[in-house]
């Protein structure tokens, strides 16, 4: 009797834990729609239009996830982006970060897939640090901020990317014996 009652609630809570961000967002919208329906509708419309502006990118990234996981072997990833690749791996990472476009959160799953296949943490960290440089968008940045600003900012970000990646790796490995989840 007791187990039968416990089960659905268990399912419920595991769902809440897995999707808490979505539920929190829905709650926020619920509040917004009761408090200020007009602005809430505006927010929803803006969110949807943002989604549409990156939907092609999402599909492209997921397509890439599928390709990397099936066609590139662990040995290849480790050789190119693992510890054995040395500095080269970090330079490749910095380059990738500057070339890729779109919001950083879109490539999180791609990066975690590569990490699972044997890329070192510093590579992931470097890609994300170099991500603040957007080579395809530099013309736009120059237009708004001037070429001196844009040039110096780009150079500084690239210079700092690899150190940032290495620091992040140190943090990730400092927990190695204990609760490290090297999935």
């Amino acid at each position, binding site marked *: 009797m007791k187990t039968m009652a416990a089960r659905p609630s268990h399912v419920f809570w595991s769902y809440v834990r897995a999707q808490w*961000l*979505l539920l*929190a*967002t829905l709650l926020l919208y619920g509040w917004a729609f009761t408090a200020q329906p007009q*602005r*809430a509708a505006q*927010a*929803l419309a*803006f*969110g*949807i239009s*943002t*989604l549409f*502006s*990156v939907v*092609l*990118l999402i599909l*492209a990234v*997921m*397509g890439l996830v*599928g*390709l990397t*996981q*099936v*066609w590139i072997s662990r040995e290849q990833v480790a050789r190119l982006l693992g510890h054995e690749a040395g500095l080269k791996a970090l330079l490749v990472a910095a380059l990738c970060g500057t070339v890729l*476009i779109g919001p*950083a*959160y879109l490539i*999180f*799953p791609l*990066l*975690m*897939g590569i990490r699972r296949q044997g890329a070192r*943490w510093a590579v*992931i*960290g470097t890609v*994300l*640090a170099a*991500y*603040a440089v*957007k080579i395809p*968008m530099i013309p*736009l*940045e120059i*237009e*708004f*901020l001037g070429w*001196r*600003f844009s040039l*110096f*900012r780009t150079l*500084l*970000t690239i210079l*700092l990317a690899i150190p*940032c990646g290495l*620091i*992040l790796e140190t*943090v*990730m490995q400092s*927990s190695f014996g204990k609760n490290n989840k090297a999935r």
Partner: protein
Amino acid sequence: MHDVAFIYLSLIALLYLWLFRRSPEKTRQSLQVAGKSLLRLTPMLAAIFGLIGLFQVFVPAALIEHWLGAASSWGALFMGGLIGAVAIGPPVAAFPLAGSMLAAGAWPAAAAAFVVSWISVGIVTLPFEAQVFGLRFALARNVIAFAAALLTGLLLGGLL
């Protein structure tokens, strides 16, 4: 941005076609992996885009400009980084905002910290990042990225 995304997608579609000729089996498997990860991420993405909309409407650009104002001090630098960290939106949107800050007489260091932090630090996407990489990674990366944004701003302020 749309054009570049379209080129990306076309290239990947071509890659799929080319690989399909080499091994239909493995290519089908790739598509399956792609579809599965898309399905798994959909609720998270829905939440993120919902939050972006709320942020845009309830924290409009004019308010951000007002917060940053034309101040030129260490406080402005920190504030620039902090607002960039909390703000969420396409990277391109950071440029006009920073431009109007500069036009209003803001310290370039603060504007630079704002831009870098906008793109590389994400407080709103932190839960998503933690879900994908683990909490330790998400926290460490955002703290490091925030420090890097302030440092970039400071160095840039010195250079300009």
